[in-house]
């Protein structure tokens, strides 16, 4: 899988169109099938986190502990509501993201020293420490039962749940587009390209006078923020947070989504997330005992036959059309 990919992957506007297409799908389909609205909202939450993971993958860094930041974002939301009674949706999302970002900055400062497997394993270790704390500090976090997240107000309005779900769904879609475009710009900026360069040749980058650690820390902090935002959305969407959000298999799921969708372009993470959530929903109906096997096999197939993921497939179809 080409982590760097063609680094001017598609013109800017192409990404815009792809994202808008996704957005339309995420808003239109639920009109036909109402419960899809919730599935998509959650999918966007995962997609944001997966985008964070995908960014790091472009730098050749695999984190099998990124669920940590999803959990921080989610629990931050729960605590903000519980302890200081913050109750405004957008305020919650912003604060939870900021808190997660701060956590990412601190932990990242330590992570940036490590590469390859050690990076992966340390992320794993820290997420598992956090998972254990969430489950153990019963009187603070409700242990493995998790914490309730009430329905927040939107711009001061108290909505009933159905209305709120709809607002949340649309806000999530809007956030998806906005954030994805920002990240797209970042990845094409010197800082973003330097990240891809690290994967290809870190020594050379240092010989350009660039601090690889700095570049990685920046990327790590951003990816943490993304995961945090995803976690916050998940928390308000589901209305409940549990330690499993930070368990290592969920981190694995995020990497899986990132690769499934393809890391050569920002829409990939979201394509992957939608695809994954749909597969999971149907698998839960038709093959409840085998859905892990199904997604696992899907992952292997993608890795072997679509090294650029579903997004890469999309690109390829495009280029083929172009050739004809």
């Amino acid at each position, binding site marked *: 899988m080409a982590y760097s990919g063609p680094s001017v992957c598609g013109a800017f506007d192409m990404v815009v169109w792809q994202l808008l297409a996704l957005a339309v799908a995420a808003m239109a389909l639920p009109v036909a099938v109402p419960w899809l609205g919730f599935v998509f909202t959650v999918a966007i939450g995962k997609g944001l986190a997966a985008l964070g993971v995908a960014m790091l993958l472009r730098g050749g860094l695999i984190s099998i502990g990124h669920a940590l930041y999803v959990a921080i974002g989610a629990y931050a939301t729960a605590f903000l509501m519980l302890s200081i009674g913050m109750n405004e949706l957008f305020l919650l999302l912003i604060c939870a993201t900021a808190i997660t970002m701060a956590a990412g900055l601190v932990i990242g400062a330590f992570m940036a020293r490590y590469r390859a497997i050690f990076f992966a394993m340390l992320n794993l270790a820290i997420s598992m420490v956090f998972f254990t704390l969430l489950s153990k500090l019963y009187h603070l976090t409700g242990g493995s039962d998790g914490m309730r997240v009430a329905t927040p107000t939107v711009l001061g309005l108290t909505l009933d749940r159905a209305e709120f779900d709809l607002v949340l769904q649309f806000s999530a879609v809007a956030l998806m587009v906005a954030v994805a475009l920002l990240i797209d710009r970042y990845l094409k*900026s*010197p800082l973003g390209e330097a990240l891809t360069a690290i994967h*290809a040749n870190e*020594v*050379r980058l240092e010989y*350009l*006078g*660039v601090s690889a650690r700095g570049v990685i820390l920046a990327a790590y902090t951003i990816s943490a923020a993304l995961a945090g935002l995803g976690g916050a959305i998940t928390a308000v969407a589901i209305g409940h947070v549990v330690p499993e959000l930070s368990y290592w298999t969920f981190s694995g799921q995020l990497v899986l989504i990132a690769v499934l969708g393809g890391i050569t372009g920002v829409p990939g993470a979201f394509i992957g997330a939608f695809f994954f959530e749909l597969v999971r929903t149907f698998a839960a109906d038709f093959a409840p005992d085998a859905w892990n096997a199904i997604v696992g096999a899907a992952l292997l197939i993608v890795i072997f036959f679509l090294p650029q993921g579903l997004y890469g497939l999309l690109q390829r179809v495009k280029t083929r059309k172009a050739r004809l």
Partner: protein
Amino acid sequence: MNPLLSVRDLHISFGGVKAADGVDLDIYPHELIAVIGPNGSGKTTFLNLCTGYIRATRGSVIFEGRSITNEVPRTITRRGIARAFQIPQLFTGHSLIENVMLSVAAQHGIWQAFRPLSREAYRNKAREVLDLMSLGDIAHGPTVNLPEGLRKLADIAIALALKPRLLLLDEPTSGVSTAEKFALMDTIVGVLRAEKVTALFVEHDMDVVERYADRVLVWDAGKVIAGGPPQEILRSSHVLERVIGIG
């Protein structure tokens, strides 16, 4: 005139092997210096020490009057010393011009997260360097499967794009066919002269050394055992037998 780079009593050894055993040398502005010596005599190690890839156990490296002893490559690069490698070090994920643009961006603020790398200003700067190195026509191609000669040039182009005051080249002609060799060196040296870059290059080919170097330094067992203009160095029987192995 005081030296651009002056090295004093530099030491390091790997498991008993003395790769640098009290190296002393001065490089003056606008010189083009060739370093010769048998394999394992510590030539590449010397470049690694100067650029901070490995740390010296003893000794000092002074650049433009300020010590850069045991600084990290990043800092030393920022001070104005660029390096090209024996094994070309390229960003294989990027096209050639992007490689160079990264190098350009590295000088004016890599810390821009929202303006694109491939902006006009950077593109032009990169373009210039590539044209100088006569790599213009493959600028937008990938760097992965270029022939060795072009990879070498690309590697050097990235270094030059940093606008260094001192350039260290590690065997620029290794792995390049004899036919290409001189063409390659003509290009490189042409650029160095044009850009007024002081340079030191490690070289095995005595023809290349004789033809391009202003001064030759002879390495052996981690020491500089002789130094002077090519004509006289390459005639000294002592050097010939130690380095080129002719009795």
